[in-house]
């Protein structure tokens, strides 16, 4: 009995936290808080993925979204001095138009969902995944696809990223004149004679 209840409980816990955090992202007044709520939303949706048995996607969610994207957002929000209060001022003015657009979207989604025809083979496809679930984990299956079947594309993507990196550096990096940098070698080669001067200071006169 407990074995059945626990996943359901976990599901409701994670989904409640996800929905509440997502709501807080939108309504939090401080953008930094919004980003922190966003991280909470990512985290609990990773939990939902684990419940689905998609542990690889869950880890990606944590590593990529929480580890990189959210931190990047945080930096952008903190560095760009955007006046969010000013951004919100037109809220009531744009509300009717925004609500109208939202209504159109909802109607369209309803139309799509209403007329959606699920292909008859879908249920058999879902029941018989290739490769079979008992034979491999989904991490291994993804690894097979990315590093075996699509090894060529994977390497090509690596080359593209390398070119992007070289390009970003070569188009923006410039060596500035007059920047004081620490030179360890120069520091080590300093001798006491050239670095220290002994001055006999008379009382009340100081050094001139």
């Amino acid at each position, binding site marked *: 009995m407990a074995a059945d209840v626990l996943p359901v409980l976990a599901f409701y816990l994670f989904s409640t936290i996800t929905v509440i955090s997502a709501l807080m992202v939108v309504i939090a007044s401080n953008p930094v808080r919004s980003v922190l709520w966003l991280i909470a939303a990512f985290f609990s949706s990773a939990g939902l993925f684990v419940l689905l048995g998609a542990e690889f996607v869950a880890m990606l969610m944590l590593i990529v979204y929480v580890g990189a994207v959210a931190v990047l957002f945080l930096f952008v929000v903190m560095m760009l001095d955007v006046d969010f209060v000013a951004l919100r001022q037109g809220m009531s003015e744009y509300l009717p138009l925004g609500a109208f657009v939202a209504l159109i979207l909802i109607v369209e989604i309803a139309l799509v969902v209403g007329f959606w025809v699920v292909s008859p083979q879908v249920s058999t496809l879902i029941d018989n995944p290739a490769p079979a679930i008992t034979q491999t984990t989904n991490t291994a299956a993804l690894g097979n696809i990315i590093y075996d079947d699509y090894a*060529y594309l994977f390497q090509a993507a690596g080359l593209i990223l390398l*070119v992007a990196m070289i390009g970003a550096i070569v188009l923006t990096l410039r060596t500035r004149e007059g920047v004081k940098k620490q030179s360890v070698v120069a520091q080590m080669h300093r001798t006491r004679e050239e670095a220290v001067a002994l001055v006999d200071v008379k009382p009340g006169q100081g050094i001139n």
Partner: protein
Amino acid sequence: MSTLYADLAIVRPEIVLAIGAMILLVLGVFRAAGDAQAEATTGRLVYAVSIFLLLATGLIVIVYGGGETREAFGGMFVDDAFARYAKVLILFSAALIMILGLEYLARNNMMKFEYPIIILFAVIGMMMMVSANDLLSLYMGLELQSLSLYIIAAFRRDSVRSTEAGLKYFVLGALSSGLLLYGMSLVYGFTGSTSFDAIAQAVTGTEKMGVGLLFGLSFMAAGFAFKISAAPFHMWTPDVYEGAPMPVTALFATAPKVAAGAMFARAMVEPFGAGTDQWQQILAFLAVASMFLGAVAGIGQTNIKRLMAYSSIGHMGFALVGLAAGGEKGVQAMLVYLAIYVAMNVGVFAFLLTMTRNGKQAVKIADLAGLGTTHPAAAACVAILMFSLAGIPPLAGFFAKYFVLNAAVDAGLSWLAIAGVIASVISAFYYLRIVKVMYFDEAGEPLTILGGAEHKVTWAVAALLMLVAIFPFEPFNGLGTPEAAERAAQSLDIIGHAGVPGH
């Protein structure tokens, strides 16, 4: 494991180039650190090794290619006579353009080691494009090439025009990639596969392609047309050609055009060969629009780089006439056209790279005035190249046009051939004007020709090629170009196309 090694043996040229480029990158980063002197010598070293790498890879393609068609990585990569033909053209023209650009780069303080490395990556992308047998691998190659070209277009970052060229190229290129991807996703959705072979089977089975598939095909054609700068997707070309540094412009006009043209051809005739009569009108429209736009818009130009841009738009129009004809014969005509086009452009740019006045690059057509008296030999060669670009018999440029127009007539597209002849006559105006400016206009300040022996040899050899060697009959036989192009076209897997579509 053994299949992986077999696959790696097939992509040997690309691997040699990629590993070479990465080793050079590491070498450059470590050696160039320090003063400007170290940077310049490293730049020269990397540049020389890069040229050597391109030539060596070209030899590998020729020597290890063999005659057969080999597929690697589950059919995503194909090495056939078609790919090898395009790769040889790409590698050798890129190497030649690099040799010719050396002097300009040294003169303008552009000798950075990143420049040759980015060109190497662009060439790898081009080789992947012409070998792509799957929508995914095609897109990866295309992006690798485009991204590298965006960077070198903006390489003179202290020049506003160069930066503008790079940015413009980047933004419009991203847009065209979007169009291409949209088309690809539709094609994938309606055929169920990204592999050219599977798409071909899906297309062959039906009497007429569905609306969704045709829609996807049209978007893909629009994306390709952008990459080969065919009208009405040509808008970036004149600005990018004008803004980019001269050696980069020379590169743009040659190797990427071959790559994009070959990729366009394969992506049309292999997966969609059975529906040739349905995409023929798209290609025919692109061809007519490009030919006429290239001919008419070039007339008002005063800047020779812009003129060459319109010239290349027009020439791509002619190449597309061959593709519009479809089938083996059309592809063969297009490949011959591309080879002759590249030879002409390498010759012309060898000369343009050396044109200077008061130490600055001369880019005006009027700057050529009086060249006939001050540098008679150079002027004679340039005149021959211009006549050939205009397509005046008995020069090679004429035979190039003859091949594609003949293919169009055979495919029942006589009106397209007639349009091509008219456009060719209009475009002759601006090519002949250059000859007139060189020989009959009064020279102002004399032009300085800064090039070394490599430039003189290149433009002289190019002119000689135009004069004699590309004749498609005995004893020259076009230096084997038509036969090679025929083998290349035959190696394509064109299903369900009977040569002459019913019209």
